[in-house]
């Protein structure tokens, strides 16, 4: 167990950034997102969550895959994938870390996505326990322990000090390489962890009933009439999918530059009307079908393909960020099971 005074955290960041790239929550304008550490950036690990989740570091919102040079009838393919340098991801909360495991089930399944895999192997994750979870958090429902967020190193803020517990070889190697850390005793964090656990138990959504959501009920859930009212106010924007840490859908598009064509991969949203548009027709014409697809995929389709593991980590971003306050909690409360109401 290592520790450092809260006010010397800048020294820690500088030391880590000296050795390898460091990504941590940085406040730019009025929003906190994971950005690269440089001198003079405003680090903000006080706010509970970043707007875009840490998935952006492994499955970026847009990423060049290759470039084509065409001359006459011939095409030349230039591989534009960059192999990532080792980097440290600091300040990841328990829910975001669980989302990496869910994304691993998608991108590391056969055929493996090498771009994602390279980044996942190049990272050392330093997670941070949530000292004061918000009312929109419900990570406990999906088996996440916010006081022990796992990862390579587990950090906890106690009073005006931050304690680091290494959990993996990578974590131990990182902590040992940092001189500005002193040794701390393991019992110091017990009290804070208990306090966090109590706060989490007092949250409003902590005991949601998910019993109805399983593979066998797929057709029953699909035909439930409540989807009409649940999705009535949905605007079909992509906010819930772009802030969600477990959304995996992407699009592959071409961009004509002046000297050739860049093919890149970018996030896509099942809530957009063009998502399933075909030359002939669009199987999901109205917003209710798209809305249903999004939550059925997270709560029913994904678990039935991944031995019961849900596609949601209970981070509460969709609860906070939906323009019209529609979210997965309202879906669970309506369709999840009897003792929700």
């Amino acid at each position: 167990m290592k520790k450092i005074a809260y006010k010397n955290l800048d020294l820690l960041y500088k030391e880590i950034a000296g050795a390898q790239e460091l990504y941590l929550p940085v406040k730019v304008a009025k929003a906190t997102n994971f950005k690269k550490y440089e001198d003079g950036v405003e680090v903000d690990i006080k706010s509970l969550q970043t707007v875009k989740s840490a998935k952006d570091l492994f499955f970026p919102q847009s990423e060049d895959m290759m470039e084509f040079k065409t001359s006459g009838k011939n095409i030349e393919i230039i591989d534009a994938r960059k192999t990532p340098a080792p980097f440290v991801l600091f300040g990841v909360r328990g829910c975001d870390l669980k989302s990496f495991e869910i994304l691993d089930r998608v991108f590391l399944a056969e055929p493996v996505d090498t771009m994602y895999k390279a980044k996942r192997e190049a990272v050392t994750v330093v997670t941070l326990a949530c000292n004061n979870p918000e009312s929109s958090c419900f990570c406990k429902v999906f088996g996440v322990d916010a006081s022990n967020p796992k990862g390579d190193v587990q950090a906890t803020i106690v009073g005006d000090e931050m304690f680091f517990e290494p959990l993996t070889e990578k974590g131990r190697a990182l902590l040992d390489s940092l001189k500005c850390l002193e040794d701390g005793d393991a019992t110091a964090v017990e009290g804070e962890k208990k306090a966090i656990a109590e706060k989490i138990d007092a949250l409003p959504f902590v005991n949601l009933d998910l019993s109805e959501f399983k593979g066998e009920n797929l057709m029953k859930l699909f035909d439930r009439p409540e989807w009409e009212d649940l999705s009535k106010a949905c605007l079909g924007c992509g906010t819930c999918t772009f802030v969600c840490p477990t959304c995996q859908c992407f699009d592959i598009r071409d961009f004509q530059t002046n000297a050739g064509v860049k093919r890149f991969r970018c996030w896509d949203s099942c809530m957009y009307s063009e998502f399933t548009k075909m030359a002939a027709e669009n199987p999901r014409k109205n917003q209710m079908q798209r809305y249903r697809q999004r939550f059925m995929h997270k709560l029913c389709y994904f678990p039935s393909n991944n031995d019961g593991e849900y596609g949601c980590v209970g981070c509460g971003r969709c609860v906070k960020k939906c323009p019209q306050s529609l979210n997965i909690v309202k879906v669970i409360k309506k369709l999840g099971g009897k003792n929700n109401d």
Partner: protein
Amino acid sequence: MQEMNNEKRPLIVAFCCNWCSYAGADLAGSSRLSYPADVKIIRVPCSCRVNPMFILKAFQRGADGVIICGCHPGDCHYTTGNYYARRRMSLLFSMLDYLGIERERTRVEWVSAAEGAKFSAVMNDFASKVAALGENKRLEDLRCKE
């Protein structure tokens, strides 16, 4: 920017309305009045055919300055085209200035078919101002810059 006899030259896109300023450009040419070769003219039926998307895409593709030329207000072949264009471009260029884009990168000029001299004078003046500003760094698309 563009590469011309291996030195960097500013790239200027001029949207010229078919009835007046394009004819003005012809007149400038036929009366041997020169204006910089950096200016690339795009003929449009009327100055109000120029969609703000065209202007931003010109900057995206590497233009350093964009100038819209049309008939003098009142002489428009379609009677009201340049009146709308006048309002539209005023608002758009004021917004670009609001976002911090240098004012001298955009301009609107009224050139009639008989003003070959004015056309070449305007183009010379605009090209020199844009050259003075240097490369367009504030509205550039990195993917289009090799």
